[in-house]
């Protein structure tokens, strides 16, 4: 296959060449450093990603990306650890990305998710990376998806992503993961409260963790009831029951979640690029109904069942064409993001020369021009 060269920036800087080779030969520090290049958007990072995507992963197709989100204290790290352990015991390799919040005061961050996971870290079957949110508010860091791409290219067939988990609206995971697992705990209080944060709309699976605690059964019932009402709503208004996020909007990078709205008019099976594989008028499988599972992550209870449910969800997604649709939506988002970032960079570069702005201001002061006319003129220069 012929890929175009990358005019966004110069070719892969020679200094990054060893990283690429290192990743291909399985050198862990090379992978770690490639991730840093991407995370920090250092010179050459787009060329590096391009090169990694060109070469593809380890040839086994894209990795299965599972997102784990939920309120603070839900035991997300424990669950990720338990899931990773189970995959590893089955002989699979796992990449984990855990996002923690950046302090708005200092710009620093304390990344503590590893405390739970580090006991697995010496095993060659796992690679764990912590990321700081760096001001991003959607539950992931700006470059989390691209970091996952790097891990994917390094040959990890299983990727687990843990969101920030500070209780804000963390819906970006829906645009990144193939399967979204929402984790709640009995003591997180009113389960419906968590629903209000929009988690209902993005969950493919619900997990009630710490299910050995009182109140677990009640929470399970609450979630089921909420799902039931939602399904009824869906029947009435044709909102896609399998996935509350309107992928057309995800694809356009608009705000996600908040269910209904425009989504009401989107027919099931319609993605931004039209109908996906396996969907359409004929042979369309049943819509996906989010499952509610129970786990005690620290004891490993219920984890096998969870992984099985994730597999079933994946099977459904493949059969229904949903997987393809989500991936196309993700790719569309990526193109938009790269363009967006590049345009901003070019604007910054153009305006870095004070004479450019000075000339515009002079033109306006002299009369006969307006900010709009000047912007239009500068836009010409950008392209």
């Amino acid at each position, binding site marked *: 296959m012929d890929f175009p060269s990358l005019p966004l920036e110069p070719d892969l800087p020679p200094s990054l060449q060893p990283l690429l080779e290192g990743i291909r030969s399985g050198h862990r520090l090379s992978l770690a450093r490639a991730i840093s290049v991407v995370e920090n958007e250092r010179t050459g990072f787009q060329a590096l990603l391009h090169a990694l995507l060109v070469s593809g992963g380890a040839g086994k197709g894209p990795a299965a990306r599972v997102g784990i989100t939920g309120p603070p204290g839900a035991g997300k790290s424990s669950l990720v650890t338990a899931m990773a352990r189970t995959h590893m015991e089955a002989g699979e390799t796992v990449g984990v990305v855990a996002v923690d919040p950046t*302090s708005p005061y200092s710009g*620093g*961050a304390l990344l503590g998710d590893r405390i739970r996971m580090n006991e697995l870290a010496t095993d060659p079957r796992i690679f764990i990376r912590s990321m700081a949110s760096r001001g991003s508010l959607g539950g992931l860091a700006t470059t989390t998806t691209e970091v996952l791409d790097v891990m994917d290219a390094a040959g*990890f067939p299983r990727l687990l992503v843990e969101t920030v988990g500070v209780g804000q609206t963390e819906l970006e995971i829906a645009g990144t993961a193939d399967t979204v697992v929402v984790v709640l705990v009995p003591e997180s209080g009113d389960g419906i409260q968590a629903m209000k944060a929009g988690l209902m709309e993005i969950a493919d699976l619900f997990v009630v963790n710490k299910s050995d605690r009182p109140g677990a059964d009640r929470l399970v019932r609450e979630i089921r009831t909420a799902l039931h009402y939602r399904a009824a709503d869906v029947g009435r208004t044709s909102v896609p029951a399998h996935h509350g996020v309107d992928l057309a909007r995800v694809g356009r990078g608009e705000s996600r979640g908040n269910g209904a709205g425009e989504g009401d008019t989107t027919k099931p099976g319609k993605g931004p690029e039209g109908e996906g594989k396996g969907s359409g008028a004929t042979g369309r499988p049943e819509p996906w109904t989010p499952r509610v599972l129970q786990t005690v992550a620290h004891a490993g209870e219920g984890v096998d069942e969870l992984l099985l449910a994730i597999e079933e969800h994946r099977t459904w997604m493949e059969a229904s064409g949903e997987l393809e649709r989500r991936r196309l939506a993700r790719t569309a988002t990526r193109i938009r993001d790269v363009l967006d970032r590049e345009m901003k960079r070019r604007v910054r570069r153009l305006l870095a020369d004070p004479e450019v702005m000075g000339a515009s201001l002079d033109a306006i002061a002299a009369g006969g021009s307006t900010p709009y006319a000047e912007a239009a003129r500068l836009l010409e220069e950008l392209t």
Partner: protein
Amino acid sequence: MNAGEQRVRVLVAKPGLDGHDRGAKVIASAFRDAGFEVIYTGLHQTPEMIVAAATQEDVDVVAMSVLSGAHMTLFPRVKALLDEAGAHDILLTGGGIIPEADVRELGERGIGRLFGPGSPTTEAVAYIRSWYQEREAARGQEPSQVSGQTSGQTAGQASETGAGG
């Protein structure tokens, strides 16, 4: 955060069996407040676990807190494993109850400054900042290079060659 801007990444690690993490937590918070991205390992880490974390997280600095008296075993062991992973350029520093003579000896063996009890956190912050600036200047702003190859396979590779245990 602007493109290309990088934050100092520090692994704060508690090796060995000693559970006194007051110092580790205080320094981790101080590093965060200084704008560093801090990965905290939790307690009771083996040198292997610390180096696995340092490698995967691609930290600039590993800061170990050792109050158990086992520093003459733990620091050299972590340093050797870092070197083996190709991470010669990671600064290994730390603090704890470490006699002067041992500090000198560890310094000769490639370990960075070690901070004794009562050292202000600002001293450690300043030390890491200046070390980092020097290193970046020496690299001429070039992105980090991997020195030394071969050891440590990524997961994907390991499973393909059947090396994953």
